[in-house]
């Protein structure tokens, strides 16, 4: 059988089958069946390579290509299981299958000895299945189902160590917060369905572009589009729904790397990229909202990242920061920049998480106040973390630099100089806090000697993925160049492969390129100055602006504001509803009608006497009654 885009459904089928098998028989297998999970991960990557080859062979105009089955089809409602591949999908597939398999492999080392070892891989398989379905879905309904699927997996994996109260709380918080966005997404999907009568993504895009039917109404289209974005903002942790992502770090680190860095959190970016023609057709205010929330998210997360002391949380805030940047790119209509950043971010952020996981695994400590000087004990982890951090900071020639550069160029094209300056300033802050966390954890003198003595380099099964990801972090940015793209078999650079409306031929803007490089180097240079020695200078700054420090340290009091809202509004309202439900609905409505029903049944059962003449009488009576009705209707 030819293996290509039409067989893309194989991807979720492989992992889905593995999930079902592990769920049913996992406990009878040695090692909880982890080898099956690793095998399935590798298999998806191999299938992905075939799909990629196939995609490069066909002319662009014929995309998307895929295959689907009608699941339910009757008048007015068609539900399809359809999978299709286009350029955006292939980028997502690259991240999901490649990073996914590496992380499954890494987990076999990280999770060793856990009492629920097999269950971890089972849920991981379910997650990869849902994620693959999400990116391959050719209709919004299937996409939504997969969207909720990754949500539930995220919930299960954040709360994987649910004996720990904080983990259980974090899982709940993540689930509920993203659900708020998901409701918006669902309403948005229903609005599109109502207007077009279909869930098919291509058809909806076409209808929106031509302004058919209800979608011709600008307000309706904009509202529906913004509701889609609400779902994207929830999943991708955009302000004001970003609060769940830092807490999600309660989950095992491979989970943070896979779900909360490389794949699930970028589902929102993917959704907006996929639906970009709809966003472009809607009122400009829709894209302005995307840009504005992106900027707010970037600055809030960068500011909080500066003062966090938990190595994993800093990486988490940097993820929110990155996601904000991707939405800024999308707000400027640059699918190219967003997807390039998404691809490279998938590599270097997974690397950062896995490297910090390696630290946590070795030291059982994630507060930087207890770390320091680890680079001598854990050289591979240390150096790979350094490269990841520099890529995140955006230092040339690492992949993060090229991706960030694309975003800045897009801003310059589509927006004004002020936004460009703001974005460049955020690059400066990012460089500071990424430099800071590396400096505090790996350089300087050890702060806690017990921890330092315990530290050791992680086993090869964990460091090997780090090295592979580091290599990709080093080189993956070069695919912006036409030469590199052509050597790999593409038409040209990344911008000529993934784009919205017009191919973007790469050109290097020297002012922006050099400017952002200066911002990065300045930020990195500031780190030893402020945090050198015992970090007095940093303390001094904090004391200079105590209120600002307090504000940032407490994450702008977002959690507290939500808590007050929950206590004062939601719980009060639900208390009233609960009273109504108990007294009126339950005691009177449900119990009352149940009593009437039972009584009616009790009365009616005596009709059945067991006497044959009575039965015959009933038949005769029935005939006469029917005749009476018939004639009454007739005459």
């Amino acid at each position: 059988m030819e293996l290509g885009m039409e067989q893309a459904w194989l991807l979720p089928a492989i992992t889905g089958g593995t999930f079902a098998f592990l769920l049913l028989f996992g406990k009878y297998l040695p090692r909880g069946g982890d080898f099956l999970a690793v095998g399935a991960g590798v298999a998806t990557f191999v299938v992905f390579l075939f799909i990629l080859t196939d995609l490069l062979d066909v002319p662009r105009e014929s995309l998307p290509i895929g295959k689907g089955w009608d699941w339910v089809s009757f008048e007015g409602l068609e539900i399809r299981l359809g999978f299709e591949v286009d350029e955006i999908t292939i980028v997502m597939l690259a991240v999901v299958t490649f990073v996914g398999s590496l992380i499954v492999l890494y987990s076999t080392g990280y999770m060793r000895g856990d009492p629920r070892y097999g269950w971890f891989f089972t849920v991981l398989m379910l997650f990869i299945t849902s994620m693959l379905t999400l990116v391959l879905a050719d209709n919004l309904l299937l996409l939504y189902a997969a969207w909720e699927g990754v949500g539930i997996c995220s919930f299960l994996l954040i709360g994987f160590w649910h004996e720990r109260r904080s983990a259980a709380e974090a899982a709940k918080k993540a689930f509920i917060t993203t659900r708020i966005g998901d409701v918006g997404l669902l309403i948005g999907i229903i609005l599109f369905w109502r207007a077009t009568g279909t869930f098919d993504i291509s058809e909806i895009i076409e209808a929106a572009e031509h302004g058919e039917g209800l979608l011709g109404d600008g307000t309706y289209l904009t509202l529906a589009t913004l509701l889609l974005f609400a779902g994207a903002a929830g999943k991708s942790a955009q302000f004001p729904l970003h609060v769940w992502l830092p807490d999600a770090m309660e989950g095992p680190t491979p989970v943070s790397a896979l779900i909360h860095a490389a794949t699930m959190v970028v589902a929102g970016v993917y959704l907006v990229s996929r639906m970009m023609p709809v966003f472009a057709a809607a009122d400009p205010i829709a894209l302005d909202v995307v840009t504005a929330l992106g900027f707010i998210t970037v600055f809030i997360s960068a500011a909080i990242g500066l003062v966090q002391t938990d190595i994993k949380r800093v990486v988490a805030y940097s993820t929110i920061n990155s996601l904000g940047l991707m939405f800024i790119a999308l707000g400027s209509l640059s699918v190219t920049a967003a997807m390039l950043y998404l691809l490279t971010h998938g590599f270097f952020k997974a690397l950062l998480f896995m490297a910090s996981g390696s630290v946590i695994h070795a030291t059982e400590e994630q507060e930087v106040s207890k770390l320091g000087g680890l680079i001598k004990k854990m050289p591979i982890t240390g150096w790979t973390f350094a490269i990841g951090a520099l890529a995140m900071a955006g230092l040339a020639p690492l992949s993060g630099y090229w991706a960030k550069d694309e975003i800045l160029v897009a801003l310059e094209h589509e927006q004004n100089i002020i936004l460009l300056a703001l974005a460049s300033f955020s690059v400066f802050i990012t460089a500071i806090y990424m430099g800071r966390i590396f400096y505090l954890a790996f350089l300087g003198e050890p702060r806690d000697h017990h921890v330092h003595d315990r530290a050791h380099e992680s086993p090869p099964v964990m460091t090997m993925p780090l090295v592979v990801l580091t290599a990709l972090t080093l080189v993956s940015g070069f695919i912006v160049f036409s030469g590199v793209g052509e050597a790999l078999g593409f038409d040209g650079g990344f911008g000529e492969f993934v784009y919205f409306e017009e191919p973007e031929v790469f050109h290097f803007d020297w002012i922006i390129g050099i400017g952002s490089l200066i911002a990065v180097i300045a930020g990195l240079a500031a780190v030893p100055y402020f945090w050198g020695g015992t970090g007095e200078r940093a303390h001094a700054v904090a004391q200079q602006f105590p209120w600002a420090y307090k504000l940032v340290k407490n994450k702008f009091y977002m959690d507290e504001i939500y808590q007050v809202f929950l206590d004062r509004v939601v719980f009060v309202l639900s208390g009233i509803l609960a009273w109504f439900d108990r007294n009126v609905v339950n005691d009177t409505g449900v119990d009352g009608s149940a009593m009437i029903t039972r009584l009616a049944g009790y009365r009616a059962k005596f009709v059945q006497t067991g006497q044959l003449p009575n039965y015959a009488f009933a038949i005769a009576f029935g005939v006469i009654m029917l005749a009476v009705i018939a004639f009454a209707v007739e005459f």
Partner: protein
Amino acid sequence: MNPDWSLLAPEYILAGWAAMVISVDLFFGRVRKDYLAYLAALGALVAALVSLIYINDDKPFGALLQIDNYATFFRVFFCLIAFFTCLISARFVQERVIHAGEYYALILVTTIGGIYMAAAEELLTAYIGLELLSFSLYVLTSFLKFDLRSNEGGLKYMLLGAFSSAILLYGISLIYGVTGTTNFSEIAQALSGNNDDLRFPMLLGLVLIISGLGFKVAAVPFHMWTPDAYEGAPLPITAFISAISKSAGFALFLKLFAEGFMPVIDEWRWIVAGLAATTMVFGNLVAIQQRNIKRLLAYSSIGQVGFLMMGIAAISPDAASAMLLHLAGYVISNLAVFVAIIICYNQTGKENIDDFAGLAERAPFVAMCLGASLLSLAGMPLFAGFVTKFILFQAAANQDMLWLAGVAVLMSFVSLYYYLVVIKEMYLGQPEAPTRFPIVPLEYAALAVLTAGVFFVGLYPQPFFDATANATDLLFAGTSAASVSSGPPAP
């Protein structure tokens, strides 16, 4: 014109096989009785496979029968019902029944009757098919010679059956008098003309035919025989009656009214709708009060009849195909329920709802399948019942029968209660004895297949939907159904 005799091959096979089963029992008296069950089941299966030859045929047999997709659908359907009934009878009959040969032969003969009812093109053939089916069932109901309840149930069934047969015949004769024909499509032609003088006998004929068929499918108030017959009959026969007698009744009901009485739809639509409403309300309410599982299923099946009659009241291509779909889903779920109950009965010999206490511990697989099938009967999502009910109720609502669909939803809700009572007993009750049931491979396999069917229809109804749409496609071809239909069924 010489009829094409080859069209009836499946019926020849069934009849020949029935004779063979009797002869085997007669001449090889010492053969193990469960082999007879497998032999008869094989015959039913062969007949089902042979029926598949006629897919997409549309040929008349004389002017009596029409072998089209509708007939093929029911041929396969009835043969499969007979197949499962024979299989699950094996242990029951071996232990409790004498004259096993006749038992299985009668099952096969009943199937022939059912097929003729579905394939008939004119009233008298339909009537003969109905009598063939009924007489076989009377005998089968009272097959437990030394069980008083079986005798009582069989006798009541037969006496009342005779009574309602007379009613049906009277109705047929009146319609013949009005139209001068017994052929369905000719009846439709005659009725579409202006014939005000004959209004009264025509109406009376309609009422009598509805009453007669109402008895067959057990619509209230013609349902009285059902609980007694269900309770008295040997358990596998109860399953058989609930499946084939109802399906055959509805097959004839739908075909006759769609092909023959369409021109006077305004006359009978409200009668059927009223009957449907009464039936679903009464059946479901009384079911709440039952303590015996067979009687519970009798009343619940009466409730289901109400839902199915809704499909006839809302007659249209959509509704007809939806009704067939629900019928198929109902029969699959109901057979699964009965197989599970027979497995328990073979083990414990008890049939009250309390006796199912703790079944989940004694036979977890049986309990799971029984639970799933009961939930399907109640119409819960994931299971067959949800999809089929959804489509049926929607079809009714589309035909301005929103009130009826509303009553149906309410009664589905009531039905959930008594199904849940059984499930509660199984999972929360304390078992009388902690011993596990032995696993009987054949019965478990039958149960697994049927339960898989319940899930299959529930999760992927498309093939069934296509099949029922194909089967009902031709029903409306001849009549001017355009005035009531809301477009062709989905391809």
